């Protein structure tokens, strides 16, 4: 080691801190609740070739979306002079690098030091609106990408420091809430600039070669850390399969499967055997799939160290083109995240029995995204409410599952406080509580899902909902019981209760009730083996009913 070791260390720490700085800038600048409350975004920096240096994540599900976006930008603009100082790029193309669905927009900012391209800062965030057939740009019934909104194909939204006025006008004219949407764009640009300035500072301070060296060293460090963990994993082939119930158009179920091969020097995940892409909007692109595989790769190697491109040198993901999780144009992709999460879950299911200290049993496996739109009863202004829902996580070999957490595709995601929610949307929330649905029993119990009630207060509102695990249940381990289901109900004036697994803009009248259930997680171990004092405590706390204690656990009072 030479004395540059510590200079490199300090620069590496500073590069990781750039991710955190951009993360804060993004939260603070955004106008979309889905960004600032749900943190449905990621920020990061890459080197000049698109290798991921550091990423600040709000959610896990953007883990392969930043570096691949930069790589794709470099492919589209390969010549000297294509990318200039003051340029900022925008993309939301699902099938290319950085792609998920149209609502998630990537902003890419090249960073120049002394006129040399040295890095990129990049972020991806869920915008309020990008147009398309449905308010909020989310559809459970689209059949082509064109119904889902505007497509930005790696365009220059700023050129030589000037905003692209034509593009701005096109966006404004094609979205329902132009101020919000433009606010989302400014937030992304501001965050990218914050990061770019910090990187330029590092170059000025430590000189070019030291920083470039530290960048490479940072990537190598990620690889070394990951390799050390890989050594500890059991080697072999592990397989799991599962289903996705529906594509939004009533087709299904569809098979999804993963074979994980762990060898001395890499982890290969092969999703061959997964069903072909589907007519409805549940398709996920290959970039999305890589993100999913990276999540579990991270979870079973080293969740603590900051993710960078070096870590992922030891991961290989394969899947034939054109499946449900490697879809190609013009497949509709609006609800891609449910299939992405299913891809995470199936690899998780393959690995959980071999790394039980890192992975619990199956969880609700769904964002359970719920949208209500309509006119606010006080202001008569149009609103779109969209929020993900918390559910139950699976038990582990020594612990009960977590109650009421967002799914694995989320992360630093926050529920919307009821007091803000009611004020902002005028809907009345009447219940937010753990439910008593059957499922998840075990020596270690699956975590509880929730039941959430929205009462409509305007003349009419429109309800959109999409989930999986609506018929299949979160998986269990070692003789535990499977979890419960995700689903929604509409309680009509006439006493009718409609059950929905998937619906788009269903009209709900004033004072009718929308009730959403999220799944409880899977149990681990035979429920009969659960310690008696734990069952007594569960009954006292209402985590299980007396009937469930008797039926599932064989518990007799007294």
């Amino acid at each position, binding site marked *: 080691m030479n*004395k540059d070791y510590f200079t490199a260390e300090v620069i*590496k*720490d500073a590069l990781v801190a750039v991710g955190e700085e951009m993360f804060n800038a993004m939260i603070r600048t955004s106008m979309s609740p889905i960004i600032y409350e749900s943190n449905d975004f990621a920020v990061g920096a890459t080197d000049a070739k698109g290798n991921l240096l550091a990423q600040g994540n709000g959610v896990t599900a953007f883990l392969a979306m930043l570096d691949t976006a930069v790589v794709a930008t470099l492919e589209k603009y390969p010549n000297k002079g294509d990318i200039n100082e003051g340029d900022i790029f925008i993309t939301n193309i699902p099938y290319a690098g950085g792609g998920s669905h149209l609502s998630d927009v990537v902003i890419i900012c090249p960073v120049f030091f002394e006129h040399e391209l040295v890095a990129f800062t990049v972020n991806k965030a869920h915008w309020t609106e990008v147009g398309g057939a449905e308010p909020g740009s989310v559809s459970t019934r689209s059949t082509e990408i064109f119904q889902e909104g505007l497509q930005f194909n790696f365009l220059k939204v700023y050129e030589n420091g000037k905003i692209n006025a034509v593009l701005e006008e096109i966006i404004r004219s094609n979205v329902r809430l132009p101020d919000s949407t433009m606010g989302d764009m400014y937030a992304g640009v501001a965050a990218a600039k914050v990061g770019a300035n910090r990187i330029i500072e590092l170059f000025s301070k430590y000189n070019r070669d030291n920083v470039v060296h530290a960048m490479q060293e940072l990537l190598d460090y990620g690889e070394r850390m990951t390799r050390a963990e890989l050594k500890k994993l059991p080697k072999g082939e592990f397989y799991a399969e599962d289903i996705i119930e529906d594509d939004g158009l009533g087709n299904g179920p569809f098979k999804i499967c993963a074979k994980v091969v762990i060898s001395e020097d890499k982890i290969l995940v092969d999703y061959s055997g997964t069903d072909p892409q589907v007519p409805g909007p549940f398709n996920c692109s290959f970039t999305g799939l890589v993100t999913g595989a990276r999540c579990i790769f991270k979870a079973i190697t080293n969740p603590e160290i900051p993710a960078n491109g070096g870590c992922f040198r030891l991961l290989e993901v394969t899947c034939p083109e054109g499946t449900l999780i490697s879809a190609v144009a013009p497949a509709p992709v609006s609800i891609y995240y449910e299939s992405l999460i299913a891809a995470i879950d199936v690899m998780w299911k393959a690995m959980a029995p071999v790394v039980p200290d890192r992975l619990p049993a199956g969880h609700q496996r769904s964002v359970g995204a719920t949208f209500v739109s309509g006119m606010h009863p006080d202001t008569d202004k149009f609103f779109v409410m969209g929020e993900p829902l918390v559910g139950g996580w699976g038990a582990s070999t020594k612990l009960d599952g*977590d109650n009421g957490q967002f799914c694995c595709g989320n992360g*630093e995601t926050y*529920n919307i406080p*009821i007091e803000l929610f*009611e004020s902002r949307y005028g809907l009345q929330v009447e219940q*937010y509580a753990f439910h008593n649905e059957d499922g998840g029993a075990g020596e270690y119990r699956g975590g509880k899902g929730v039941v959430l009630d929205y009462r409509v207060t305007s003349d009419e509102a429109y309800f959109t909902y999409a989930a999986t695990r609506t018929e299949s249940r979160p998986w269990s381990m070692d003789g535990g019981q499977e979890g419960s289901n995700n689903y929604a109900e509409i309680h009509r004036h006439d006493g009718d209760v409609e059950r929905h697994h998937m619906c788009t803009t269903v009209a709900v009248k004033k004072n009718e009730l929308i009730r959403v259930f999220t799944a409880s997680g899977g149990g681990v171990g035979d429920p009969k083996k659960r310690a008696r004092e734990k069952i007594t405590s569960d009954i006292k*706390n209402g985590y299980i009913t007396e009937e469930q204690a008797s039926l599932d656990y064989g518990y007799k009072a007294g």
Partner: protein
Amino acid sequence: MRVATDVGGTFTDLVYSVEGQLHTAKVDTTPPDFESGVMNTLDKARLDPKAIEFFAHGSTVIINAITERKGVKTALITTKGFRDVLEIARGNRPDLFNFNFRKPRPFVERYLRLELDERVNYKGELSKEVDLGSLTDLLDFLKAEKVEAIAIAFLHAYINPVNEIATAEAIAKLWPEVSVLASHQISREWREYERTNTTVLSAYIHPVAKTYIESLQARLVDRGFEQPPYLMQSNTGISSVKAVLENPTSMIESGPASGIFAAAWLGNEIDINNLLVLDIGGTTAKCTLIENGEIRVSTDYHIEKTNTDPGYPIQTPVSEIVEIGNGGGSIAWVDEGKKLHVGPQSAGAMPGPAAYGKGGTFPTTTDANLLMGRIDKNNFVGGEVEPDLDAVYKAFEPLEKSLNMSREELARGVVRVANSNMTNALRLVSTNKGHDPREFTLIAFGGGGAMHVVALAEELNIPRVIVPANSAVFSALGMLLTDIRRDYVQTKLLRLDTDGIDEIGSLFDGMQQQAKADFEAEKNNNHTDDAEFHYYLDMRYNGQEHTVKVPASISSAGKFDLSEIATTFHSSHEQRYTYTLDTDIEVVNFHLVAIINVDKPTLARKEATGKKMEATFMHSRQVDFDHHGIHETNVYNGMEMEAGMRLQGPAIIQEPSVTLVISPGHNAEVDNFGNYHVLLRGGQS
């Protein structure tokens, strides 16, 4: 005589002033009877309680009762349908790729979370009067469960607490012995989980706080000090016993807040009002930013929050602090990828750094400073400890092997990594929020502050560093210098326009009446008659969520000045978020700061007798200044230095508990109050 005492984790400090001269005393903290330590400081200083006119007190007792889970069995009564809000919390999982994550456990178990049928809507209208029919049965159940405190938290009580008040009154009648706190007493802000959790924590520690404060008072009365003490709060002001018992979480960060206040006070005395404040202790470093003399106080504080743990929100006014696990006792270690880390694990007070010779086997920042000659090995811990160098060498050995470098290189690296951690924390409070560190002065205190501060200033291009006189008891000093302060924060959505401006006036007016009534109820002879008011608005662009706090200016006509407020908002927003929008502005929270000035000591100036700098020379030793090289360095006795003295780096100024390391190329001087100033890169004052 005016006295302040501060109960910390390890030491209990006393500061008092007699005719402008400050005196201090330090004793061991005495758990679980913390008040005994307070009495011990008085004894050590031979103070006669009868001669005390004013007694201020800060303490970690409240925060410790929470972090050590030593509160009482607590129940929650909440709105029907929402008892699980406390457990669901916000649903976030900051430990993103740890799929075996478990969220922090709520402080009230589910069977003690009870519901009543009631409802107030978001406009503050009462839609359903609380049904107290089941209350007697509920209370019987809680009695049988031996509950000692009850928190009440209903939806939208921040805007209309009528149902909470009715419930609290009914409980007081049915069960007068139990501690009852309702959410509207704790916070008038929206966000039900944050408000509920704060109320629960307040109830959880209420009996503990009551016992502690009452015993302290009784001991003081025994000694002949009849006045009630003032208690230091997290909002940087002091308050009455009554106010603190209405919301014990208000004391949660009294120590750090007091240090921040002392920094702001000192800045004001010497006319330097843009400060970055850094307090380096044994296990953590805390920092904050003061702009134009204004301390930022906000209500989005969390305890036990880390990068991987969501922690617990405390929706009560706390001076903004960024805290990192990086202090003198932080342990250096190398991970599997051969990266050197410092902290967040700490050797703590026991066993402490390896050099303490108390069995510490891990290398710490303090050990590295000792190896570099920055700490005087002949005067370690004020000369009370002979450093165990063999233990230090042994502690460094595994890391030397692992990184294949010499002990000297490694020690330098440990200090550099520690400095890099602190630099990043200082960036979080400055650059990250739109402030340029070059426009600030860095003030450092706490055990490790002086040791690292010059290197940090170099890193951030900060032109001036201050190490205050009395920096070892700086926190207690703040309590002696601050005023009685109450913060009132009320959520109320309002458009900032000509109609809105009148409502702003009437809302603040109502809050002011409340403040006056509260002060009146706790009046005593330390009070001046008139309260002083400061008005702040948390505002946002319509459609946004996060707010900017700006002072609400009043025009010459004595009314709130619409255009001035809007202008301030736009510029604050631009500073923090880089842009402005041409959108309506919305007020979210009204924040009234009410202050009653108390008499404060005027600190005496440090005398200059014309003593020569050379007279304070102690010795010279080899000191490693990292990239400035190793130099034979003059060490001066800070206790002997006087106003106006100047010197040039490389140099060290040493006091029993302060070591100020001045690298080559920088100038240092002592001001009229005995504070050390370091002017970087040959700067002159």
